[in-house]
Every structure is written in structure tokens, then in C-alpha cells.
């Protein structure tokens, strides 16, 4: 089966998602970090076996890891590989807010087109925050 059995995240690639493959990998690592499936200090799979497993170009994996590193999500330790970092964003509070607002705006526009009203939208946000906190707690307890 998998060539990285100790890794708790199963990457999935969808060429029809309309999102570059390397960004799909970036999102999945960020999601795993937010939900606690990946903990600070956890290693990421090395490039070659992951590329072979997903049957994608190794440039794609390298690009995803470079992006995660520039976002401060992972760090590379020479000769050892890539590891998930403590959650310290390298950006200032202002920049962090601006980045988040862009994402929120997209959800707001989506909600408008799906006819989801303000109260329902806010309730959904609260529900998702609870969901992630619960998942992170569960994984934390399991350690």
C-alpha cells in the first residue's frame, strides 16, 4: 500500500478541481494542521515516494513544500526532511487579517448565491470552528 505508512494524512488529488495540484497539497497539509491530524514536529513524506505514490511530477511536490515553507507552516531540516512547525505565522496581524478577509469574502459571495442568509452563515461558521476544535482536542488526547 502506501509508501509512507507513518504519515496520518492521505493526500488526494483532483485534476478537475480547477486548482493547481501543488496548491491542493498545500491546502491539505494546512487542513491537517488545523484539525490536529498533523502535530508540530511531525515529518512530512519525502518527495520521491510521495511523487511516486500520487503519480505526480516531483517538481509539484517540491513546489508545494516550498510554498508551505514560505507560509511558515513547515520547516526543512537539511538532511532530515520537512517537518510541521509550531503555529507561528510569519505575517503581521494586519497581513494575517487581510489574507483571511479575502477567503471570507469568497465564502460570503458563495453564501449570497446559494441564498444562505446572514444568521445561518454565522451559525455555520461557529459550527465549523467547533468542529475543528473538537477534532484537534480528540487527536491531542489520543497522543
Amino acid at each position, binding site marked *: 500500500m502506501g509508501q509512507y505508512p507513518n504519515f496520518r494524512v492521505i493526500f488526494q*488529488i483532483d*485534476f*478537475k*478541481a*480547477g*486548482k*493547481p*495540484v501543488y496548491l491542493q497539497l498545500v491546502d491539505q497539509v494546512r487542513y491537517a494542521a488545523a484539525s490536529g491530524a498533523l502535530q508540530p514536529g511531525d515529518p512530512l513524506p519525502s518527495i*520521491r*515516494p510521495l*511523487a*511516486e505514490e*500520487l*503519480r*505526480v*511530477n*516531483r*517538481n*509539484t511536490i*517540491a513546489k508545494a513544500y516550498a510554498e508551505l515553507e514560505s507560509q511558515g507552516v513547515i520547516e526543512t531540516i537539511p538532511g532530515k526532511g520537512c517537518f510541521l512547525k509550531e503555529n507561528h505565522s510569519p505575517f503581521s496581524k494586519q497581513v494575517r487579517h487581510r489574507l483571511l478577509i479575502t477567503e471570507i469574502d469568497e465564502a460570503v459571495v458563495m453564501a449570497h*448565491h446559494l441564498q444562505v442568509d446572514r444568521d445561518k452563515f454565522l451559525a455555520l461558521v461557529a459550527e465549523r470552528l467547533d468542529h475543528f476544535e473538537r477534532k484537534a482536542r480528540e487527536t491531542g488526547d489520543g497522543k
Partner: protein
Amino acid sequence: MNTNPPIIELKNLTRRYGALDAVSGLNLTVQPGRCYGFFGRNGAGKTTTIKCLLNLLQPSSGSLRVFGLDPQKHEVEVKSRLAYVPDVVAFYPWMTVNDALEYFASFRKHWNREIEADLLRRFQLDPRKKTTALSKGQKTQLALISAICPEPELLVLDEPTSGLDPIVRREFIETVIGAYQSSDPERRTVFVSTHLISEFEGLIDEFTIIAQGKELLSMEADQARDRFRKIRVRLPEAAPEINLDDALVVRRSGREAEILANGNGDALLEKLRAHQPEQLHVEALSLEEIFVASEALKKAET
């Protein structure tokens, strides 16, 4: 940024067979470290182009450079730096697997024995077996081993997986990603001609589609998947007729429509949303679907 010459550079390449232009004014550039897809229907001119790269055929006009060199003038140097896996492979019938590998190795300055042993094990090829006793899949595997062991700067694959079973195809691609690209990825370039595009989807950085010897579309794979999108929509009963002339392809059936967008997906979506569709679904086209859609592109041009 990059001072090295491109690995492959075709300028206005033309190759005629009598009155027929098999390749007609083709331009194409492959940078080092890329995996470049070369797609086209049978007879589109793919193999003719590849034969020109290998100096098995000479261009009628235009220019052709491999590693910055003219393959006609520097045939030995060009060939010593690349390896080629054709769609049909043949070996001398009296040779065993081991004989064949030794024979190929004798032409090469460098031969990685470790990779050789590794791949023989992985493919479960018996070195003592006669090459005539190998299945089609095993022959391709042997050709792939002999192409990868010299660790060439350029790997040229011409329809390498056609006619193979799915497991062998999968292993073939994993081997190209793993064994070939593992060391020094900047100096490992792949040029693959295929119409089994979906299998190579993850590997392709950039591609050219050719039709009737001419370039139809050249793009980065990610860009292409962003530009070509399929929209499925179901409109409410009362919706008026919407003008979708700017879509690449439209298929309608009553209130439902399937629309292919060529770079104007957002504008089309906006237009459709204005009619409060009951369902609206967007997805990127896979490279294979883009290849199929390129037929429509050709029609739109003429």
C-alpha cells in the same frame, strides 16, 4: 534566470513526404527539468518530429536543436545524452535480458548498476531469460531499464504505454517519476508523446497538442486546467434563451446545458447566475478532455 540552452528547441520545423507535410512549421521549446507532453491523434506528426530529434529523419526546413546542438552535425553527442523508448521495442533474438543490458551498456559512458539491479527486481525480470520469451510488457520494461540506467539528460518516450496492461503502465510511470527523476532533477527532462493522456496527467508540466503537423495549443498544464472549464447548468422553467455564442462548445437538452469555457468561465458563470439556475456545477477539464476539446478549437479557428 536560465542561461542553459533549452533541451529541445524547434523553430518552424517542417518535414515533407512527397507532397505531404507531415510536420509543418512546428515551434516548441522544452526547458531543462520539465516533463513535456506531446499530444496528437495518430498521424498528427508526433513520431516524425521525434525521429527528427534523433536524426533518424532530416527536416525539410526549419531548425532543430537538442541541448543547443544540431542533431545532424553532432549526432553522437546528442544521442549520448538522451535515451529513447519507442512504442514497439525489439531486441536481438539470441540475447538474454542480461546480454541485452550489457550490450546497451557497452555504448554508454555511464551506466548505473544500482538502478539496473533495482529495476530488474522491481519488474521481476529474470536476467537469464531470452528476450524472445518476454511478453510485450516485459520488453517495454527492459527498454525502460536500458533507457534509465545511463541517467540521460533527456528521456524521449514515444507512445510508451500503449498496448500494456494497467499494472505495467502504472509501474512504468512510477519508474519514470522515481528512478529516473530521483537524482539531479534539474538535469532530468522528459519528452513524452502519448494519447493515453490521463495516465501521464500528474507528470506533465507543459504540453503541446499538434494536429496535421501544426501546433494547435501549447500551455502549462495548470494554466490549461484553469482556462478550460466545464459548466453544467440546469435553468428554471421560465428562463429565457441565453446567448452562449462565446462558449467553446455548448450541448443543450431542454433546461440543461453543458458548456465548455475557453478562458471566459467566470463571465459565462456570471451570465448563468443571473438567471437563478437550479443547479450550477463547474469543473476543470482534464488534459485528456482538453485534448478532445482542441478539435473544437481547430474548428473555431477555421
